[in-house]
């Protein structure tokens, strides 16, 4: 109970700090929202009028406290560039982003984990060489290059979807999911390789341990030792890795949305940073940070369930 309280407190503190840093960053970088919106031709008077309207004439801390006060009461403020409540702009973007992320995560677990287990068993030297080659190739390709490749291959060559023509999630859910699947694929492929590799290494490591030999000495086959003992022991590292993957999907998701023209949170974020629209940017970033922190906390909770005594990382024996 006490740890739960402590964890929640540190989570809130981290979010607070995040929002402050984002706010501060806008204060430090070049570009004033009012000037950006009105363009170079605008008179000084009009700029000042707009600044007053947006509350930009007030000192930094007043603005931050004002924003924070609104945020904690569920009022995320009004977007500078769209002149609409932030929530109204953000809400429709959540769907595509969530679907892409969830699809990618599904692909990663469904493909990465079996591949990893399989390759922990498969030790032929030729297979090993091919596997290493592909692993390194896939992991070395940056997501946007892979994204452009996939978008060209499936979109332009195979006509599996039309890049840039995203059907609305509410009107054509199947078409939308189909479209997002390819973005998810670009997001997932490098991480499938990483997940498989991670699981393979952790399973191979566990397979070499004494408790596996001991179980086999009691009459277990290698396969039985694997399912009875090894998988459970390899799980904490895997869960932690998947949580980290989930967090990383947030970052690469922004890029992939850009490449595939997915109208999601990532594209909104990039556009809003360009517009110096910090009510939107702050809300989005705090939200994403919250997601990252929660996935980490979730992983901790799952591992605590697997190993109630918590042997702490890999420090056994």
């Amino acid at each position: 109970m006490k740890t739960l309280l402590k964890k929640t407190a540190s989570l809130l503190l981290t979010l607070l700090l995040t929002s402050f840093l984002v706010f501060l960053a806008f204060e430090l970088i070049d570009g004033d929202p009012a000037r950006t919106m009105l363009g170079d031709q605008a008179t000084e008077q009009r700029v000042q009028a707009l600044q007053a309207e947006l509350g930009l004439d007030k000192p930094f801390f007043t603005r931050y406290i004002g924003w924070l006060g609104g945020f904690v009461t569920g009022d995320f403020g009004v977007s500078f560039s769209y002149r609409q409540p932030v929530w109204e702009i953000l809400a429709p973007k959540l769907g595509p982003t969530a679907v892409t992320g969830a699809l990618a995560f599904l692909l990663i677990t469904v493909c990465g984990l079996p591949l990893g287990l399989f390759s922990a068993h498969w030790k032929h030297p030729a297979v090993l060489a091919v596997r290493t080659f592909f692993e390194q190739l896939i992991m070395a390709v940056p997501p946007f290059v892979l994204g452009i490749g996939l978008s060209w291959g499936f979109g332009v060559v195979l006509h599996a979807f039309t890049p840039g023509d995203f059907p609305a999630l509410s009107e054509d859910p199947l078409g939308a999911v189909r479209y997002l699947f390819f973005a998810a694929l670009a997001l997932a492929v490098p991480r499938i390789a990483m997940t498989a590799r991670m699981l393979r290494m952790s399973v191979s490591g566990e397979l070499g341990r004494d408790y596996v030999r001991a179980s086999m000495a009691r009459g277990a086959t290698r396969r039985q030792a694997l399912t009875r003992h090894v998988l459970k022991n390899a799980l904490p590292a895997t869960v932690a890795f998947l949580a980290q993957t989930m967090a990383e999907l947030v970052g690469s998701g922004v890029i992939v949305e850009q490449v595939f023209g997915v109208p999601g949170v990532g594209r909104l974020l990039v556009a809003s940073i360009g517009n110096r629209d910090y009510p939107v940017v702050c809300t989005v970033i705090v939200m994403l940070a919250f997601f990252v922190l929660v996935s980490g906390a979730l992983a901790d909770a799952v591992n605590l369930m697997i190993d109630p005594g918590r042997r702490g990382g890999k420090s056994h024996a």
Partner: protein
Amino acid sequence: MLEIRNLRVHFYTRPVPAVDGIDLTVPDGEIVGLVGESGSGKTVTATAAAGLLDRGACEVSGRILLNGEDLLTLPARRLTALRGRAVGMVFQDPAAALDPLMRAGKQAGEALALHTKLPKSERKAAVLQAFRDVELPDPERVYNAYPRELSGGMQQRVMIASALVSSPSLLLLDEPTTALDVTVQAEILALLKRLNAEKGISMLLISHDLNVVRHVAKRVAVMQGGKLVETGETEALFRAPRQDYTKRLIAAAPKPFGGAAGVRMRGDAGSE
């Protein structure tokens, strides 16, 4: 009865065989010691006798006869069955030999779960009996404990119990006391002696410490570089070692004065 005949184990990754043509017999009801310096091939010998060699990683020749059946030519299925029933193995580091995430009782009953159709309650009864046989205090509590909640000595007793549940005729003990401190060492050795006397289980007791073996094993084999350099009655061998290597092993060990309680030697610190 275990009879090892001209056993040779050559790992593909190493230039010389780890075990190079040894002959060793553990008669029914006897404790035989196997001593030698680190890397002499003791663990590989025990692993082979337990039918646990990874046949894809080494070339094996010779025969390992367990009650007349050759483990090296037995089909895989028969071999696994034999492992869970006729032979038990105990390892040097009990903390590493126990799965940290499985309760001690479940691990100790694993051989029964894998090889019998006994209902869970009877398996538990058998495990609790084995726990009492190895003199574990409060067997119920130990049954539900995770390995890390037990002391080193208790962990090793759980390991011995996990081998005993299936009433094997042979125990392979690979340095079972090396990781334990002196008093616990003596207790475990006394326990092994008692199990041998009461249940007639034969044992191959491996150690790099001649003094561990001295008070427990009737016969002892001395191993060096994969070969047996000397075999004989333990006391005779102590009184009149024929090989220089054996003399050195004896000289390296401090003279025991407190009986089995005096077992501990310099070599303990340096190995593995």
